[in-house]
């Protein structure tokens, strides 16, 4: 447990000493800010529309997290392999799963911080809209995004432990995310259990229909948590196999 925290702290620190973390946050804030401005202007113009966070949430899910997660996680383990520091970590008294979990936690905490920064927009909304905004919907939206970030970060860590090369890791992560993003699309042409399975595997069905619609469902939470655990398990296995080199 302590090792996980030590590694996560190091990972987080590494993100913040470079420009990547700040660039990511600025892109998040700027993109959301532009659309937030449009949303407000539209509401002011029409005088019939109550601005919400709906568009912002969708933007965070796609393309922001969708693109930022592969970029943030790509170096995590691949870079340690390339520079040889993995030998340092793998001969320290750290279990392989602690290493992977620590790496994941570092990336995940980074996205928690990034998501926390975006809280300025709902805060502004709650100040200007009388009698107030639907806090439940905002909470559900954020929980959904946090869970999505968790699962996607886990994919990134798994891919980073499979590849020696950051760029390979980047594209592999992007590829896997895309597959799980669109996997439910063919389901509409499929009958019975096959379609159900595809729908349930999808990263999107569990997000758009529930969390982003303001609904909290235990089933969806379990989906993202199992997804995270499974991806981290793949990462741990990849490190184990690497030892046999």
């Amino acid at each position, binding site marked *: 447990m*302590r*090792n996980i925290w*030590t*590694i996560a702290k*190091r990972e987080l620190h*590494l993100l913040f*000493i*470079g420009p990547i973390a700040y660039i990511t946050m600025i892109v998040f804030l700027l993109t959301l800010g532009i659309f937030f401005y449009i949303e407000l202007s539209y509401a002011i113009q029409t005088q019939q529309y109550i601005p919400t966070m709906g568009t912002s949430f969708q933007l965070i899910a796609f393309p922001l997290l969708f693109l930022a997660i592969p970029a943030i996680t790509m170096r995590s383990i691949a870079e340690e392999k390339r*520079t*040889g*520091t*993995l*030998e*340092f970590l*793998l*001969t*320290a*008294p*750290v*279990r392989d799963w602690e290493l992977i979990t620590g790496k994941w936690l570092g990336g995940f905490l980074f996205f928690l911080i990034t998501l926390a920064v975006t809280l300025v927009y709902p805060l502004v909304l709650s100040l200007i809209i009388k009698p107030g905004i639907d806090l439940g919907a905002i909470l559900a939206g954020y929980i959904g995004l946090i869970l999505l970030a968790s699962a996607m970060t886990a994919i990134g860590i798994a891919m980073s432990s499979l590849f020696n090369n950051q760029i390979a890791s980047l594209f592999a992560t992007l590829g896997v995310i895309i597959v799980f993003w669109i996997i439910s699309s063919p389901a509409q042409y499929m009958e019975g259990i096959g379609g159900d399975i595809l729908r349930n595997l999808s990263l999107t069905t569990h997000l758009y229909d529930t969390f982003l619609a303001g609904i909290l469902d235990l089933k969806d939470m379990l989906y993202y948590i199992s997804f995270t655990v499974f991806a981290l398990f793949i990462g741990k296995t990849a490190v184990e196999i690497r*030892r*046999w*080199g």
Partner: protein
Amino acid sequence: MIKVTKLTKDYGARRAIDNLSFHAERGEVIGFLGPNGAGKTTTLRILSGYMPPTFGKAEIGGFDVVDQSLEVRKIVGYLPETVPLYPDMTVFEFLKYKADLHHIPNAEDRVDEVLEMVDMLDRSEGYIAALSKGMRQRVGLGQALLHKPEVLILDEPTIGLDPAQIIEVRNLIKRIGKERTIMLSTHILSEAQQVCDRVLIINKGHIVAEDTPERLQSRLAGSQRVELRIRKNSEEAMPLIKKVRGVTNVTVTTDDLLEFEMGANQDVRPNVARAIVQGGFDLLEMKQNTLSLEDIFLELTRDETTPPSLKDRADQP
């Protein structure tokens, strides 16, 4: 403390080490000596818990390096061949990170202590990226010492150090080696002789010799090589030198350079010098070369039962 039985490691189809067996007791310093590609790093990596062997078994402090890898890693300090360091960290941050992974109490104090030991205290706040190769080597040594390991595994610990540091690190190894078990690899014969209680010579994945440095020395000192510089026409001097008793293996290396071998226990250099001068040649230089590591390997691997040097000596009257 270290017990290795029939250790074998294959990388794909290539066998890097083959059936290695050896052991080391507490307080022993074992030297692992061998040319490039002999399998030193491979063996040390297995011992450090980095990777499992293909066959065979290795135990450190009674723990199996595969099944109880975590216990092994807790009691082993390992300096890898290419010292893995994070360039973006300061020396202090790096050692603190390692200390935290070992759950060392009062980590900061211990880090300072270790920095003192490897003489890096003044660069504590400097970034690793800005260190020289030798300094990195010292930081690498420091991270291996942090948790006061019972067993130290050092892969070429003095490579890249300046002469003063080499002496210091060797002294450090000797000091630590009094209570702890150390296994180090090196290319340098004299280093192995200076710091090790026992030397294992490995070549192409096999242990070809195992002995105390003293015994190894006398075994290798079976012949000494002497280099001669003669003004011009060194070839013409060859027959003269060959005639001197105790001289073997005369060769001309360049125009004015000659080499010959002699038994270690009969120094025939004065006789050779006299013969050359009396023959009317100008002797410019005479230099005794100790055998290089490569020569030793040639000797040890050419004919395992009777090294040529011993045979030569037996031939002499």
